């Protein structure tokens, strides 16, 4: 079978992004997976159908994305580490369920291998689900959103997603795309690693009321003020996460850069290539890894040191909103986006920077 993982010496493997997600989940102690086919993430349920039974866990091929997300809700409520995966239209169908998970504080991991939209769109890579990941469905809530940019990170951040989900009792979204899902690359697996929060006791989980009163997983709070109080609790949690969990990468950012690129995921990777070829310009890349919580402060700080802030995305400017919030001076911001599955090339980004800086790199 093409795209089959190849084991390499020294615990490294040549592996497809979608397969790395599977291995990560299993290594992180996930023993419950539910998913429904959709390109370009089909390798995940396919490979899971083999790997999960081997690992002694439950694989359910859900009959829809609604069933997927609600299986994850139930498994999470029962205390298990659970995951589902899909791609853009399927993720839209999960919006109600994700809001319930957030409201009920049920942990779980949702992987989105984004494709072109709107509607059925196409199956090419895209980043146009930034909005629905970061500014989510009904109610005041947030999921933690992690954006890997290579296959090693597809693995690492999927592992981390489970830890964060349990630590904060929150849904965690791994926001990837079709390119990273399909790409094969060498990575290092950390087989059977102990994740930090794997053995965290979950007294809130439903396991049967042994020696105690019954307990509940719920989000309905009808008594006056009760829901607001609950939301304040959620907000406190959100603040803690903002204080502690922001992650990003600074690439080639030194004291005398003129331009800053802000990009995540696949486009961040391509942007590194741009910096690599743009020897004539002093450009740094700021790559948010957590899209929520978003590193506003760091971007704000960096933006003051440069003449231009370039935002590159595979959409029409969704993260752009957050960069605008972070950057005080909107005149500095230049946006370039490809959409509908278009992948920006190093060359076109390079030319764009050149054009917007009169060739001087700023």
């Amino acid at each position, binding site marked *: 079978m093409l795209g089959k993982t190849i084991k390499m010496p020294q615990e490294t493997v040549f592996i497809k992004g979608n397969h790395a997600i599977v291995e990560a989940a299993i290594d992180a102690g996930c023993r*419950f997976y*539910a998913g429904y086919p959709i390109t370009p993430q089909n390798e995940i349920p396919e490979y899971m159908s083999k790997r999960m039974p081997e690992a002694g866990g*439950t694989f*359910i091929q859900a*009959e*829809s994305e*609604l*069933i997927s997300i*609600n*299986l*994850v*809700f*139930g*498994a999470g*409520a*029962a*205390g*298990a580490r*659970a995951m589902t995966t899909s791609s853009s239209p399927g993720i839209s169908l999960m919006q*109600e*369920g994700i809001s*319930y998970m957030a409201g*009920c504080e049920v942990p779980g991991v949702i992987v989105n291998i984004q494709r072109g939209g709107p509607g059925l769109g196409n199956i090419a890579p895209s980043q146009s689900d930034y909005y629905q990941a970061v500014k989510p469905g009904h109610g005041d809530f947030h999921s933690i959103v992690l954006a890997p940019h290579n296959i090693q990170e597809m693995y690492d951040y999927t592992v981390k997603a489970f830890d964060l989900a349990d630590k904060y009792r929150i849904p965690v979204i791994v926001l990837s795309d079709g390119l990273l899902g399909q790409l094969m690359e060498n990575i290092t697996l950390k087989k059977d690693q102990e994740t930090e929060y794997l053995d965290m006791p979950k007294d809130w989980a*439903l*396991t*049967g*009321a*042994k*020696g105690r*009163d*019954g*307990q*509940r*997983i*719920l*989000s*309905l709070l009808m008594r006056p003020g009760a829901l607001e109080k609950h939301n304040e609790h959620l907000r406190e949690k959100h603040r803690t996460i903002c204080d502690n969990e922001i992650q990003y990468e600074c690439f080639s950012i030194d004291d005398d850069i003129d331009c800053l690129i802000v990009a995540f995921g696949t486009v961040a990777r391509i942007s590194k290539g741009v910096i690599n070829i743009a020897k004539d310009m002093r450009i740094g890349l700021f790559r948010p890894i957590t899209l929520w919580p978003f590193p506003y402060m760091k971007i704000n700080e960096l933006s003051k040191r440069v003449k231009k802030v370039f935002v590159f995305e595979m959409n029409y400017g969704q993260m752009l909103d957050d960069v605008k919030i972070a950057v005080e001076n909107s005149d500095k911001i230049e946006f370039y986006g490809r959409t509908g599955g278009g992948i920006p090339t190093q060359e076109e980004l390079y030319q764009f920077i050149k054009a917007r800086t009169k060739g001087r790199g700023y």
Partner: protein
Amino acid sequence: MVIEKIIYKKPESLTDCNFTYCSGCGHSTVHKLIAELVDELGIREKTIAVAPVGCAVFAYDFWNFDVSEAPHGRTPVVATAIKRIHPDNVVFSYQGDGDLVSIGLAEIMHTANRGENISVIFINNTNYGMTGGQMAPTTLLNQVTTTSPMGRNSKNYGYPIKMIELLVSLQGVKYLERVKITSPASILKAKKAIKKAFLNQINGTGFSMVEVLSACPESWKKTPREAIKWIDEEVSAYYPVGKIKDIE
């Protein structure tokens, strides 16, 4: 000397919180029966219920065992996952007819078809009680509701769905019975049916569902007595009670 022996009292598996359902509501009766059974089977410490969105969403206030919420209609899906994670617990979904037959039709059918080893308690009161008595797929022909002001007509809305008859052909389904709760005798039968659904699960037999024809005096604009009479005369005429499937 005469001593007083209490031979019936509120089951242990009920909390001290009074039911908040309307007077004469079938949910109360079924909640009570379930609590009695959980006591009798000694499974309070391993029972996990999944409450629906519907009037019975408040079930978690009343049962003193573990209860999860579920998004509207996804109740059996949440129950499936919990059961798969805790196969030794007793897991049941409790669902209204809006939840089970309308928005959650795909969910109940797929759960049944997968033959999940859970019990489903299905409360058919022929309308959406919680939202104010709108027409449901189970509403009888000519029944007036807030969204069928002239009575349900089959031309625009089709015929009331008989859920049990719909599920019967699925091989994964092991036990189906329709009951009513209009008299002590029928209530005892209903209890027996629910017990069987629980025992099936405990014995690993597989998917079981009990449909309860249940009064909604509030939406029906009837007194509790009239409501019960209407079930005996009209509702159970369309939805015949009895055991429809039983595979050991």
